[in-house]
């Protein structure tokens, strides 16, 4: 059955709006900061064969992950014929099915609901929501976990609802294993309601168009996206492109560890092979296969055409292989909570590999993964809510550092980095919710890598704990090897962490990942890395440098030192054109020699 292009467009909009509507419903009704303010949730719709037909995109790393998870559920746990209307399957186990093709980490609960129409399976509505606590060693799972059992309750796919009936005992088992049962229940109900909303909307579409037309449309949409993706991939010159990146390069937990990729492009097909990547480690930064797959597809979507409808067709021309038991395809019992450390590097890894092939599309290195979270107790100011003993959590800066510069534009400053696309919570919301006083949220001057196009600025975020018994955990990357610039662009500034104790003693944290206890009044400062530059800084338009100086993004000294632009110190910030030209010529000549 061939669908006319018009009906196809109408149905495509319909699919997309159903998925978007599901995601929006979760953020509007959920209870925990990470979901309601951070929007750490995403939805996807699948056809009856488990192929992606539309997504409601918030967090890139979530999305293509739902494909392998659904496959695992259908092939290992609940074959399609064992499902009934009103079933809600729940799972958070990275190792469901034996490999690592499940949830990325135990905090991400995935709900799957079959969609039936006139008793025929039409497809699946799925949502992934980051739940704030599922047990584990530390609140929110933010400790240096060495194995998966330290990361809380692990659920192989189970039915939370059977035929529309909630399994109360199962719910109570789940909530009992969370430090924040109130929030978790609120978030779970929001998730299930939103998923049900998606199911109802798809049923209405089937009422309207009939099963045959919907199925045919989904099929054609996938073919359309595949065609589009192939025509985009065909623009990448055929060849083999290799690159490597290092994680934990500051020596944390025995680092650095190597990530390696070889990308082969042939006739609109593209294979990504991570052979040569180091084995998994005893720490929480290992990426399950599903996470590596998501990060890979995300990057390739960015490098093709972002307007192509997202569905299984985009996945078809791309083959991903990763060595078993490695950092990019871990096996039981590896811990995975912070798999984003690897996933962010995967983005820079692929961009770096393809830089010579498609220099106009890639982005220089970005800040990578940055987590900054605390929890604590203060009954005088925050006696409502929270978990046991009113322990409240606060977190900020889910990777809102500087992004890499682009071929014709500066990098974005203080922006959610690639695969994390989580909004930063308002300071006022943070302070209403938890005993913490935020002292500064600012752009970090001079942190963007110099270049013809400058890397994005990192962020400075400083807070004071007003809690007792406070726990602080931090994660960041690129403290020793900063985000690299491309094509003569300079690296951005590396990230740093500082703690000033209530007694005035100040220290820089030795490692980029860790956790510690804090006293009341201790102050934590996170200096986030800036993005790498693109192109030779000596070619940057002097007027753009001047604007950066006026705005305080670049100091007068750096304007001269990095860009060879001489600017007067007075309020008018005039460029000394003659001195600038002489300085630049001198440097360019030296560089040529």
């Amino acid at each position, binding site marked *: 059955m061939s669908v006319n292009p018009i009906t196809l467009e109408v149905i495509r909009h319909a699919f997309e709006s159903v998925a978007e509507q599901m995601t929006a419903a979760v953020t509007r009704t959920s209870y925990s900061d990470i979901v309601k303010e951070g929007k750490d949730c995403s939805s996807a719709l699948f056809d009856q064969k488990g192929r992606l037909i539309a997504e409601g995109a918030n967090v890139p790393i979530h999305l293509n992950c739902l494909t392998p998870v659904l496959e695992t559920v259908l092939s290992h746990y609940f074959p399609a014929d064992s499902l009934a209307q009103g079933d809600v399957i729940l799972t958070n186990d990275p190792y469901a099915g034996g490999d690592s093709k499940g949830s990325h980490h135990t905090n991400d609960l995935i709900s799957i609901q079959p969609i039936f129409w006139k008793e025929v399976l039409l497809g699946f509505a799925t949502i992934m929501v980051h739940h704030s606590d599922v047990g584990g060693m530390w609140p929110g799972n933010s400790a240096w976990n060495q194995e998966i059992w330290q990361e809380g309750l692990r659920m192989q796919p189970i039915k939370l609802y059977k035929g529309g009936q909630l399994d109360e005992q199962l719910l109570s088992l789940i909530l009992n294993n969370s430090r924040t049962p109130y929030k978790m229940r*609120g978030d779970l*109900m929001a998730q299930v309601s939103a998923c049900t909303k998606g199911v109802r909307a798809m049923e209405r579409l089937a009422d309207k168009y009939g099963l045959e037309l919907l199925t045919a449309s989904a099929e054609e949409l996938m073919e359309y996206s595949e*065609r589009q993706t192939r025509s985009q991939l065909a623009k990448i010159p055929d060849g083999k492109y290799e690159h490597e990146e290092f994680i934990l390069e500051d020596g944390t937990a025995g680092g650095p560890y190597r990530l390696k990729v070889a990308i082969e492009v042939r006739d609109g097909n593209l294979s990504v092979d991570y052979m040569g990547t180091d084995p998994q480690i005893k720490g929480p930064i290992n990426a399950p296969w599903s996470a590596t797959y998501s990060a890979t597809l995300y990057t390739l979507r960015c490098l093709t055409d972002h307007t192509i409808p997202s569905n299984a067709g985009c996945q078809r021309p791309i083959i991903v292989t990763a060595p078993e038991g490695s950092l990019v395809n871990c096996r039981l019992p590896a811990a995975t909570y912070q798999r984003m450390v690897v996933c962010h590097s995967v983005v820079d890894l692929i961009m770096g590999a393809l830089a010579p092939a498609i220099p106009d599309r890639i982005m220089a290195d970005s800040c990578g993964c940055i987590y900054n979270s605390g929890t604590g107790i203060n009954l005088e100011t925050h006696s409502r809510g929270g978990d046991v003993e009113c322990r409240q959590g606060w977190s900020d800066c889910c990777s809102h550092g500087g992004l890499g510069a682009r071929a014709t534009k500066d990098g974005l400053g203080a922006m959610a980095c690639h695969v994390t696309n989580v909004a*930063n919570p308002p300071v006022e919301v943070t302070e209403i919710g938890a005993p913490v006083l935020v002292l500064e*949220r*600012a752009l970090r001057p001079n942190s963007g890598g110099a270049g013809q196009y400058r890397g994005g600025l990192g962020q400075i975020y400083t807070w004071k704990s007003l809690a007792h018994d406070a726990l602080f955990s931090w994660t960041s990357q690129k403290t020793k090897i900063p985000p690299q610039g491309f094509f003569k662009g300079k690296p951005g500034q590396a990230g740093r962490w500082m703690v000033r104790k209530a007694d005035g003693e100040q220290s820089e944290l030795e490692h980029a990942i860790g956790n510690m206890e804090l006293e009341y009044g201790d102050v934590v400062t996170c200096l986030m890395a800036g993005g790498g530059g693109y192109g030779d800084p000596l070619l940057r338009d002097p007027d753009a440098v001047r604007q950066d100086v006026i705005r305080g993004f670049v100091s007068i000294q750096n304007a001269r030192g990095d860009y060879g632009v001489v600017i007067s110190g007075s309020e008018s910030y005039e460029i000394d054109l003659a001195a600038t030209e002489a300085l630049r010529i001198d440097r360019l000549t030296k560089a040529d020699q």
Partner: protein
Amino acid sequence: MGYSLGIDTGGTHTDLILMDRETGRVWTVKVPTTSADPLKGIMLGIDRVLAISGNEVAGLDELIYGTTLVTNMLVQREKVKTGLITTKGFRDVLEIGRAYRSSNIYDIQMDPPPPLVSRDLRLEVTERINFQGQVLEALDEENCRAVVRKLKSREVETIAVCLLHSYINSSHEQRIKAIIAEEYPEAYVSLSYEINPVFREYERTSTTVLNAYVTPQMVEHLDDFEMQVSQRGLQSWLYTMQANGGKSSFSVARKCPVNVTNSGPVAGAIAGAYVARVTGFPNAITLDMGGTSCDVALIDGDNPKFAAESNVEGYPVQISTIDLSIVGAGGGSVAWIDSGGGLRVGPRSAGADPGPACYAQGGTEPTVTDANLITDRLNPGYFLGGEICLDREASKRAIDTFIAQPLGMTTLEAALGILQVANAKMIRAIKLVSVERGYDPHDFVLIAFGGAGPLHATQLAEELEIPVVIVPPFPGNTSALGLVIADMRYDYVATQIQNLDDVDPALSEKTLQALEAQAHNQLSQEGIPAERQCLERSFDLRYFGQSHELNIPVDGQPLAQEALHRIGLAFHAAHRRIHGHAMEGDPVEVVNYRVSAVGTSPKPDFAFQRNGNQDAIKGRRNVFFDSGHLRSPIYERHFLKPGYQIDGPAVIEQIASTTVLCPNQSARVDAHGNLIIALAEGKPRTQ
């Protein structure tokens, strides 16, 4: 009683409507919008409408203005030197924002709109208030003076002030205002506490900055407007339409111009609500399709729905605003083929210059209007009442070259395709305000206006299973009608976050009464007698833990414990209806108290004069529908008397608009001159 004049400046045309409030008689005029100096076109329109009505100028006692100035300033990135004063440590909040990619997560080439205040004009003062409103650090006044002097030396015209937690304690912001008045009295000042006293610092800062940014031009524009009007000897009350669907005096608009955002599209929603009321359909979706965009709003129980959050050109604004869904699908929207061979329409528009290919003014690309012409839905000799003669050959050339040949289709198939893709976009816009908010379009009627709305509405209704379509008597001037019938409306809010169970009814009553006193004063100042003042209370509620509230209306009785209980139950029910579940065991939290002050305007029964002696059928032509060419009668709308019945297929033409009636649809003219179109299965539920 006297005369009201509504003026709606759109992207292409400025529409005016003059109403005799006693008899309900109206006169309409359409003049080209003069973008470079909008007042030129407006004054021309005023002169014309007064001339055709023969009205004595002194009798014009109110003039209501819908302006797109706020949006235009942002689109054109007008340079206005704006300063911002923040709490120490937070001057970059405006630039950092919420720091995520909201439009397309794969678009790494995106750039957020640049901040309206550049970093060198964002300065910090030493002070700190905590979330409970306690002063942790007093305002350093010397530091503050130095900051103001610095902004003065940098020649800012207008200053926004937004300090952390000022929504609960405004003392520091007020003190800063006093210091600015001493140090730099010429500067305009916008305090976040006055503009938008609601928590979430980025959105509050953004709203306050936007207000500060548009203030100088808005003040100048309204001053000029007032002067030019008075030069014409007019002694009228002057109002602007606000985003909340109510009019406000020029003096309030000068202080809080951010509220004048979306002034034009909102007027359409108000007019739609009015049409819904007079036709007896309390639940309606309004579709206002002009040259470049299509604006959609939802009317629930005679009133337009409000949005919780909105943005203007990518800048978030937290103001009370009618929930509008605006898509780039208008008569001038250009059709094109993407790299994958998909047919797309808009968002780019050919506008009025060069306009669609058929205008023959140099446009070569096919537009929605061209597609309507090729399908013979439009009459080439009667566009804008014959003002422009449309060139059918030019439309055919454009569609063939850009769409039909590349896709291997006939011209007709391609034209139909363009219409259907444009319709798909509008369907999505309609779903945004309905389906996505928990409303089923099937329970609504569609009220279609704007020059192009009635051309598309009947097909949209079929797609969405909307049973009834209503086309008001003057579709081309309906937005302007919304201006003359709008009530005056001001919204007041106080944030006090507290468990509903812990609320002391007496204290809440005091809070609400304080808001009501403000509201009452404002209306009285503007000459609204007590009997025309209507104050509405509501609570913003959520479950403890949530971040998004639902607005629950509350009656005007003094608050008692029992009433609070009822409010809680109403919240659970609303949550279940809108979101699909309720958490009855969880605590409910009050976030905001709201009072809306409405000064009602009399809404006359319009008297439409129809000349019933002439034959309404003026000819027949073949019109292309989904099922093929059908010989269809062509009616002149002006000759349709109340009670007239028409069966589809048919085309009903009038000066500024054309209504298409599909096969199996039938239309009836009601007593007010509205066309009530019933779809095949649909039956009007009332009247």
